[in-house]
């Protein structure tokens, strides 16, 4: 029983990790409708920034949030403005995928060029200290990630529901052309959303950096799982992404224990495929209209 509880707890904490990474991706995927393969590299960039700020200035890693998040916002906004936006008019929307693949390759190798292949260890400041909650143990840092993911989901929901900009973002996400007709500046919203998505992953980077050694290819560890989470959650649904992440976290953790660690990827992707095929709108998304007839 303790083991089972521990597996579930581990799964939830892992889910928190996936959630915090995937929320930014959900924004980008749901609003700008771009499959951003460079998302993992955004995380990597954020983690290196956190590492540099923490080690050079001797600050608590969480303090670097005030620099990392705005920096990542700028990176995201620039990506949209300089890379994605010019391609919005391309005959083929797949082009954007390859633009982000190119960006991903370039960023990964730029990091290799700059920092070498060594891992960079962000000081942990006690974030790896375990906390005992009844029969189960979790890490302080994991708990922070979990809580931050929940806070981020709530904050984004409030922002999207109640603010003028948020409503404009939702309008664009639902129907780009209609929003344009209503006078929404769509390119601006896209830049903002991409920046926001990158800023979210910046927050994720700050929280993750003390727990995972940073290296140029750390992003590749996360990016596919993040996509799985986004799709499971339903396109663009932020709470959906959170719950999707929990599902994947628990499945991953349980599969690793009960089925075998060698097959956990197969289980996660298999589940993803089954859900995708049976419910293309995701576990928590609203049903999409399947045809534009009548």
């Amino acid at each position, binding site marked *: 029983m303790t083991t089972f509880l521990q597996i579930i707890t581990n799964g939830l904490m892992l889910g928190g990790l996936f959630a915090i990474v995937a929320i930014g991706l959900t924004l980008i995927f749901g609003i700008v409708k771009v499959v951003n393969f460079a998302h993992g590299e955004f995380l990597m960039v954020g983690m290196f920034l956190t590492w540099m700020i923490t080690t050079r200035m001797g600050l608590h890693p969480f303090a670097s949030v005030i620099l990392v998040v705005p920096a990542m916002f700028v990176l995201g906004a620039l990506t949209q403005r300089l890379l994605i936006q010019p391609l919005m008019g391309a005959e083929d929307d797949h*082009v954007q*995928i390859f633009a982000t693949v190119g960006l991903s390759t370039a960023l990964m190798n730029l990091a290799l060029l700059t920092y070498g292949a060594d891992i960079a260890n962000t000081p942990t400041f006690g974030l790896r200290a375990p906390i005992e909650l009844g029969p189960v143990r979790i890490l302080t840092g994991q708990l922070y990630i979990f809580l931050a993911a929940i806070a981020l989901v709530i904050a984004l929901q409030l922002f999207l529901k109640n603010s003028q900009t948020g409503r404009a973002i939702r309008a664009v996400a639902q129907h780009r052309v209609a929003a344009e007709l209503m006078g929404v500046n769509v390119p601006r919203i896209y830049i903002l959303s991409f920046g926001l998505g990158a800023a979210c992953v910046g927050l994720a980077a700050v929280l993750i950096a003390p727990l995972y050694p940073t290296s140029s290819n750390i992003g590749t560890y996360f990016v596919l799982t993040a996509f799985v989470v986004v799709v499971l959650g339903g396109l663009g649904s932020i709470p959906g992404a959170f719950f999707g992440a929990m599902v994947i976290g628990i499945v991953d953790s349980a599969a690793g224990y009960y089925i075998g660690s060698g097959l956990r990827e197969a289980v996660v992707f298999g589940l993803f*495929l089954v859900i995708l095929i049976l419910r293309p709108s995701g576990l928590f998304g609203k049903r999409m209209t399947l045809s*534009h007839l*009548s």
Partner: protein
Amino acid sequence: MSHSDISAGPDTSPGQAHSRRGAIALAGLLAALLVIPLVIDNAFVSHIFITICLFAALSTAWNIVGGFAGQMSLGHAMFYGIGAYVGMILFQIGISPWLGMFAGAAVAALVGMVISYPCFRLKGPFFTLASIAFLEVMRVLALQFTSVTGGATGMMIDLRLGWTWMVFRERWPSLLIVFGMLLITLAVAWAIRRSRLGFHLVATRERESAAKAAGVRTVRVRLIAVAISSALCAMLGTFHAMYLTFIEPAAMFSLVFSIQIAMFALIGGIGTVTGPLLGAVLLVPITEWARASLGSSALGLHGFVYGMVLIMFVLFMPNGIMSVIKRFITPKPPTDEPTTTETGPISAPAKAAEAPSPDRAGIGSDILRVEGLNKNFGGLAVTRDVNFTLREGEILGMIGPNGAGKTTVFNMISGFLAQDSGTVSLRGPDGQFHQPNNPADFAALGLGRTFQIVQPFAAMSVEENIMVGAFHRHHDEKNAREAARQTAWKMGLGPLLQAEARGLTIGGLKRLEVARVMAMEPRVLLLDEVMAGINQTDVRRAIDLMLSIRDGGVSIIAIEHVMQAVMSLSDRVIVLASGEVIAQGRPQDVVRDPQVIEAYLGKEFADAHA
């Protein structure tokens, strides 16, 4: 999704010289791929050329699914890997890779069809992500089932040399083999692009519903495309396994490799026959050069340069190299072409047709019977117990206020929407009544339809659009093209044959919609507001045209708001309001029916005129 093709696309008289020039350039390029390495005779140069041919061929094969069918797969390494593993396993039990190649192709085609079938309903990025997930699952399984695949340590072949085993000390035989495979792949792609299958694929990609209406079995054609594409990739995989002599799951089922395959097609020109070849010819040497000259100077530098080159390509040639070439070799830039979207007059028949009447000579027995049709959308009854029949050679007008359920009825009687209850029976050429349940089966029985909101295949030319319809009757590309041209001239689209559909005016698109369905030579024609948006003179001509179609023996149901047309065309009219048939009969009688007036204009108005 986009792009018709220039070198293999429709040849037209002004373009012929250019396409010949294109063909010569292509032949030259291909010859260079073979001759340069043979002349230089250096193992590394040969290796680069083998890599170019391999990627060009893989990318061309990918393009059949990713380009023609528009299913953006990033899991194609899976088929390559299957081919490699099957070839390798058979090699080890003493079966020549020349046979193993086909075994691998069969397995890959099967796997491709099985996994693609449920994925076709996934759109855009979802299909892409699913393909990646399948690839990942495949890789994990290959790692796991050690007894079959050798697991992580991979499999290698003992170096049995010779043609039987496809393993050579020299490079040229491998070059020859892969070059031959490239030629075959290109030929297959070229043949598909020109064939009925190719038109069906592109039509499905551009607009699935319109393709279905044109009788395209959209799932089947895409499955065929997947099977061909996977089989070709697998054969290349077998070759490459013999060339590498060593395979392992991480290398064979690699996402990076899959992305590369797709990328060459994208950079060359997705959906074109020669684009993937150009992409590989250009990019492979750049990659090799970057690695050879930058690889040793700093860790990661060449990867960085490679990423930046990719970004630059995508930014400055988002539609691929082929579109840039196209711009250069097209005789006149499209902007200079005057009055591109000006349609010609609809050619009405010379002699006046017999005036419509329910009991006019030439009207035969029932051809379509609609009985008790009911449809609810989430509790809202859209049609209620709709009954009517259409007789052979008759024009049946269908009118009713907006939201009356007319288009829903159309969707049900053409197989696009399943009714909740009731039957739709269509008399086939065999004289028997059938109850088809999908658009393709309806089309096969001779039913054609148009859409209220026009659904052109935007990236195809007007001619190609109509050809999609013509392919319903003609299997041969030449005949289909001829039929399409005739239909186009009849519909006043003659001057626009080579224009891209996306550039047409609304009126032009409406005509294109009718032309496409006419090219199918339907026995029953469902027209959904085809008169809306065309000018007054053309309405008159269109009416005459429809009458001449009618006199050709085609039975027509027309939803129409242009009352002039309804009155002068229809033998009979049925009126739909709130999902119910409220009146039917002669047009003159029906418009005087108080119930009809009420439905259109409100109760007070009806009372006032009663």
